[in-house]
């Protein structure tokens, strides 16, 4: 039987549970490996943005010239903001989908007596397959010439829904969003499952004895206690949505077909760095990636700070 759940706000403020020297040794291995193999190359990568490049050779220091080019010269001037808007749309949609469908499935599985692991594994299967192949498989499924989806819709009489899914700029982006959800759903389901398992059963019991129905129990008791998991899923979802590359590339090619409606920032990066005729491709693409990083970092730190503070105020 577990100890009494935490009561009241933390009264132990400022006291370091772990001594300074202990903390140091605990973080040291991670700091070393991360510092050498990720942090240092990261700074090198960002430094590329401040130089002018001649093909593969680095040229003179260019200040913020590359950044200015991104917003003043075509095709970057149109492509970057448009791709950014797609990233934001993907994030917004994913937030809603992952947190509702994911949480819903996790909750349903949580109350299931048997078959939990069976469904969990099934729903996580798409995550285990490489994105490029997922892209091909869905392209085939949704093909207006050969795809079974349209064939099925026609059979059950829903002909007018047998659209060229990936060939219409209005539907393509939503297909991308749904496929991303389809691929990723296993992660929130698992994480929420773990979080739901952490909600003490006696709390739910107490609430139901108090007369709360299922819905009230969920929103008043369960949800606040799994907020950390919601934060985790949301922050990771945000980063994933801003940096999505493999699935957009697999579904829409490097230009974000059709007509740039599935274009995202990492596709722009790829195009500028490797497919454009620009001799300064490395410089400009690095500037784009640097800006993207700053945006993601700023937004994540802000959001994490807000959400963590809210968590602390609840306990």
């Amino acid at each position, binding site marked *: 039987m577990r100890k009494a759940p935490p009561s009241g706000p933390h009264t132990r403020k400022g006291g370091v549970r772990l001594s300074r020297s202990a903390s140091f040794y605990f973080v040291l291995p991670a700091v070393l490996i991360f510092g050498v193999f990720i942090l240092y190359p990261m700074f090198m990568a960002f430094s590329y943005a401040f130089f002018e490049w001649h093909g593969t050779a680095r040229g003179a220091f260019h200040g913020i010239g590359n950044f200015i080019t991104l917003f003043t010269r075509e095709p970057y001037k149109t492509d970057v903001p448009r791709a950014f808007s797609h990233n934001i749309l993907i994030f917004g949609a994913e937030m809603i989908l992952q947190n509702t469908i994911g949480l819903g499935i996790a909750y349903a599985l949580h109350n299931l007596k048997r078959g939990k692991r069976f469904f969990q594994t099934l729903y996580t299967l798409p995550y285990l397959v490489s994105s490029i192949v997922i892209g091909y498989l869905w392209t085939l499924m949704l*093909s207006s010439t050969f795809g079974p989806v349209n064939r099925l819709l026609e059979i059950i009489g829903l002909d007018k829904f047998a659209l060229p899914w990936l060939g219409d700029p209005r539907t393509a982006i939503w297909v991308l969003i749904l496929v991303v959800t389809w691929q990723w759903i296993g992660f929130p389901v698992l994480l929420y499952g773990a979080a739901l398992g952490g909600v003490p059963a006696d709390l739910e019991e107490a609430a139901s004895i108090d007369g709360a129905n299922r819905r009230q129990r969920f929103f008043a008791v369960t949800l606040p206690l799994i907020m950390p998991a919601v934060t985790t899923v949301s922050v990771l979802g945000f980063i994933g949505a801003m940096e999505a590359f493999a699935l957009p590339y697999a579904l829409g090619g490097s*230009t974000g077909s059709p007509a740039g409606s599935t274009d995202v920032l990492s596709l722009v990066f790829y195009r500028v760095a490797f497919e*454009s*005729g620009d001799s300064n491709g490395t410089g400009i693409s690095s500037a784009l990636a640097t800006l993207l990083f700053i945006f993601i970092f700023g937004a994540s730190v802000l959001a994490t700070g807000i959400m963590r503070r809210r968590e602390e105020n609840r306990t």
Partner: protein
Amino acid sequence: MKRSRLVAGAVLLATLAPTLYTTSAHADTETTLNVWSWRPEDASAYKDIFAVYEAAHPNIKVNFQTYVATQYPQILTTGLTGKNGPDIVQTQAYGRLQPFVLGGNLVPLNGKVSGLSNIATANLGGSSGHIDGKIYGVPFATQTIQMFYNKDIFAKYNLSVPKTWANFIKNNDTLKKAGVIPMSVGAKDTFLLPLISEAFTSAVYGGPAFERDVLSGNKTFEDPLYVKAISTFADMKEYMPDNVVGVSYSDSQTLFISERAAMFPGGSFELGFFQAQNPNLKIGTFQIPPPPGSASKTGLTPTYVDGSWSLNAKSTNQAAALNLLRWMASQQFGQLFSNKLSQMSPIRGVTFINPLLAQMAANAKRYPAPYLLIADFRWAAPTGTDIMAPGLQKLFLGTTNPAQLATALQTGISTWFKPKK
């Protein structure tokens, strides 16, 4: 606990790994040359080809490595700028070659490879530095653009190879009425749309003559002939599969291979693939005759260089690699290449045993034309294809028209293109 044992085991394995997997070093005079390519589908053919060289040079071993095309530019960048890089690399042509020229990663071959004089000057354009004009590679293939057709389907509906535009349209109408997809095109994947459109447009705007005019500034892409060319292609939509923007490139190949479509406009690189997937398919080719009012009276065959074999400036086996490169500019290599891969080698004197290949090459020789957008308009951003690829797709979506597209093209390339008067 079990965990610490696992950790210890992993660490042990990790430290042993280098010894377990080190390739054995050849102590004596055997030199291994590393050749990189972006064509995994050609891997086994090249291994056979290089075996011929190895047989003639007992102390040379050629290690041919292929990499997935989408990541190849990154691979080349790291390979050419790091230590222990490759010796000979396949490089892309025209504008895509320049980053490595500018970066000083490749060795200029002027005067070092005699075989280069055996290659037509027009075909060396794709292997040269845009600014210094030096030659940085031995071109390995030229590709031509034309219409493939299914001989059996044509015979079934009593169709003949069209010599006039009227005949071409009549063929399409007959096929459409009979329920056969006349032309298989996939507009979902934009990257090949400029190439496919060139099969139709080149003769309309007048190929080589137009190229001269645009490069000298006498004409622009807003010229009525160019607009007419684009609209000729746009008008073909009714003969393409339904919802053409939803049809992927792979789908369009399948439609032709499975004989659901009668014709396929595309590059000569498709030939070997079609024949391998369906050996029963009877394929023919023809040049699309232009409509009345076009600059050319006959169809043309646009041709371009696919890429070259270049020498890494940092190669530690310069002499041996250069020898291999010289062989790759020889007729023997060219002949092996064309025989095994059913593609056109640009080296003079190579005969094409595949009759279709020979026919396409003969057409290209008699009615040559440049693949304008990649040959002359890929030197800076936005490139001609950057604009035309999504632009042609928009044409099929109906969100732009030929005149607007032509203007967009002209506006885009004017930001960096200066005609040479």
